[in-house]
């Protein structure tokens, strides 16, 4: 075991390998407040990558309704139950990570889902926590609630799948931090399926080896964001690279949202994998639930998010979501626009900070009609 630094936990932790960070790290931010679970991302991923034999059940990208949706069934409540109650109140995590909680003989605390658990990707869809009293009015946070959680592989800095593989068939690319599973080397032991707490490694019963999200690396290598990101009709995602915690750049939209404004929060940081997909928490959900899912600081994140219009940098970064298929490495707010640049600082997109509004008269005398929509 090595001691590695996990910035999301604010402390060092045990990990089976030395802590070597990649040159740059694949990352994604999801605005859960904008996701409508249309599953366009899911279908884009499915048709691009998992249309083959044995991949029928695989959704490398999925969107589940929280709190009662899961893919596979019960993935998070199962591992949370095994993990037990942990102290988590920041700025330093007091509880145990899944590596530190591993039972004797195991590298990481985990479980193998039942085969049938993969058969209900839409379970709990749109299910609310409960019903409202007749005549009740919603207040914030909502008394009864649900929200959508889009998920891909987190391309963790300290992947449990990678550490659990006895054959070292899983590797993390030094150039972009994408975690890949070598399809030639894997022998289908499914230690990765057991070890990944997010259950984002899946077993192919036809090829008899495991498979996982590849972070659309052929697109990434061509400076293009992932399929799930560029097809998102709600523009809820931004994919790019997060800098090392000691090399934060304020002109990197990912860094700004995650490290500076701190509105992007990791998924179950207490597991200790340092996941690299981040979520803007839903503003209407009770903070107790959100703290368990996204760690401490969710209340501040929601507060900052609600006041985004007061911070041009934050608003600018958020307007880059879904604005271009290119990966944005730098951004700048200039006058009435936010401008996104690629890694060579060439402009790739320009978005107005405020959409222009055009007003039309209610009555058109030329056509002798009344308009119902004047903006």
């Amino acid at each position: 075991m090595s001691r590695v630094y996990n910035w999301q936990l604010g402390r060092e932790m045990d990990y089976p390998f030395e802590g070597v960070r990649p040159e740059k790290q694949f990352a994604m931010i999801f605005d859960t407040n904008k996701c409508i679970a249309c599953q366009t991302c899911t279908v884009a991923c499915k048709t691009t990558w998992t249309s083959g034999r044995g991949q029928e059940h695989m959704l490398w990208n999925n969107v589940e309704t929280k709190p009662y949706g899961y893919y596979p069934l019960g993935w998070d409540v199962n591992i949370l139950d095994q993990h037990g109650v942990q102290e988590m109140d920041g700025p330093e995590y007091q509880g145990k990570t899944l590596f530190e909680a591993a039972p004797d003989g195991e590298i990481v605390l985990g479980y193998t889902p039942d085969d049938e658990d993969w058969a209900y990707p839409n379970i709990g869809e749109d299910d609310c926590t409960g019903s409202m009293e007749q005549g009740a009015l919603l207040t914030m946070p909502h008394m009864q609630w649900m929200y959508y959680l889009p998920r891909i592989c987190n391309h963790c800095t300290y992947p449990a799948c990678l550490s659990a593989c006895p054959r070292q068939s899983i590797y993390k690319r030094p150039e972009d931090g994408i975690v890949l599973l070598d399809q030639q080397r894997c022998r289908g032991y499914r230690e990765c399926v057991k070890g990944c707490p997010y259950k984002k490694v899946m077993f192919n019963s036809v090829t008899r080896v495991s498979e996982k999200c590849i972070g659309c690396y052929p697109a990434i290598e061509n400076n293009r964001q992932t399929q799930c990101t560029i097809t998102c009709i709600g523009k809820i995602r931004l994919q790019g690279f997060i800098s090392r915690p000691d090399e934060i750049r304020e002109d990197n939209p990912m860094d700004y949202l995650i490290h500076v404004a701190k509105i992007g929060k990791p998924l179950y940081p207490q597991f200790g994998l340092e996941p690299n997909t981040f979520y803007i928490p839903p503003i209407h959900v009770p903070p107790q639930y959100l703290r368990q899912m996204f760690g401490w600081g969710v209340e501040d994140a929601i507060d900052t998010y609600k006041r985004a219009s007061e911070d041009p940098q934050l608003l600018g970064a958020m307007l880059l979501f879904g604005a271009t298929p290119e990966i944005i490495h730098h951004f700048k707010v200039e006058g009435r626009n936010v401008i996104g640049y690629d890694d060579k600082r060439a402009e790739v997109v320009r978005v107005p900070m405020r959409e222009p509004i055009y007003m039309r008269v209610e009555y058109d005398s030329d056509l002798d009609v009344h308009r119902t929509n004047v903006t």
Partner: protein
Amino acid sequence: MNKTAFHCSLAAALVVGMAAAPVAAADTLRAVPVDATGPFNDPESEVWDQAPAVTVSLNPQQVTRPHHADIAVTELTVRAVNNGNWVGILIEWDDDTRDDWFVTDAFGDQVAVQFPVEGPASPMMGNPGGKVNILQWRAAFQRDLVDGEPDIRDLYPYALVDVYPDEVLRVTDARAFAGAMGVDNPVARPFESPVLEQMAEGWSSLTVKPMQHADGWGVWEDGTWRVAITRPANQIMPGDPDLSRGTETQAAFAVWDGGNREVGGRKSWSGWIDLKVEE
């Protein structure tokens, strides 16, 4: 990730493992000479009646993680024969369930016999500089040979699929959608035998040999597996063990009970057993 550090820790664990390796209470395994044609791949052949049985004790693999302390199989009965050209090993063990297919939570029964090839080798898949030859029989791959490789409706009868890439694309274009099959992963592509011939020089180094010479077959009946594994007695390729007549060498065994979710390092294993290929 630093693989060197990992290998160093493996090597350290290996030394501990060898020192702590339980001594199997087994007599010498005698591969008795028989007047029969090889290969000896029929577990129900009468040829095995000529060979004395040796009991081999098994212990859980507990030197490297992950491991499974609660193993299902603790004892094997082993017989061996040779005819000068082929060596055959018959391995029998009790197993209440025949596990011979794969889905996410279903693992297959397997058994392996290992021979030292080069240098003093650890009984646990060798070590750097200590090469071993491993012949691994796998129940699920035998089932493929009998029933054909399963498609999705064999595994899930109500599965609905509209079209697969290999139905509409040219072979070369469809390969990219075939996962491990498309890159010829040796556990994904079909073989002519349920026995896979492999090399190892320590954990995580198990490699399928490009030329396969071993064969075998298993029969499960009344809660017992009887598996015959056979290979040529003489060295054909580099890395082959010498099992020619008069040779005194060693063999070690490993068993996986799929029903007990034993796979990879979660297995029961034996120490080295003396093996004499008799003239």
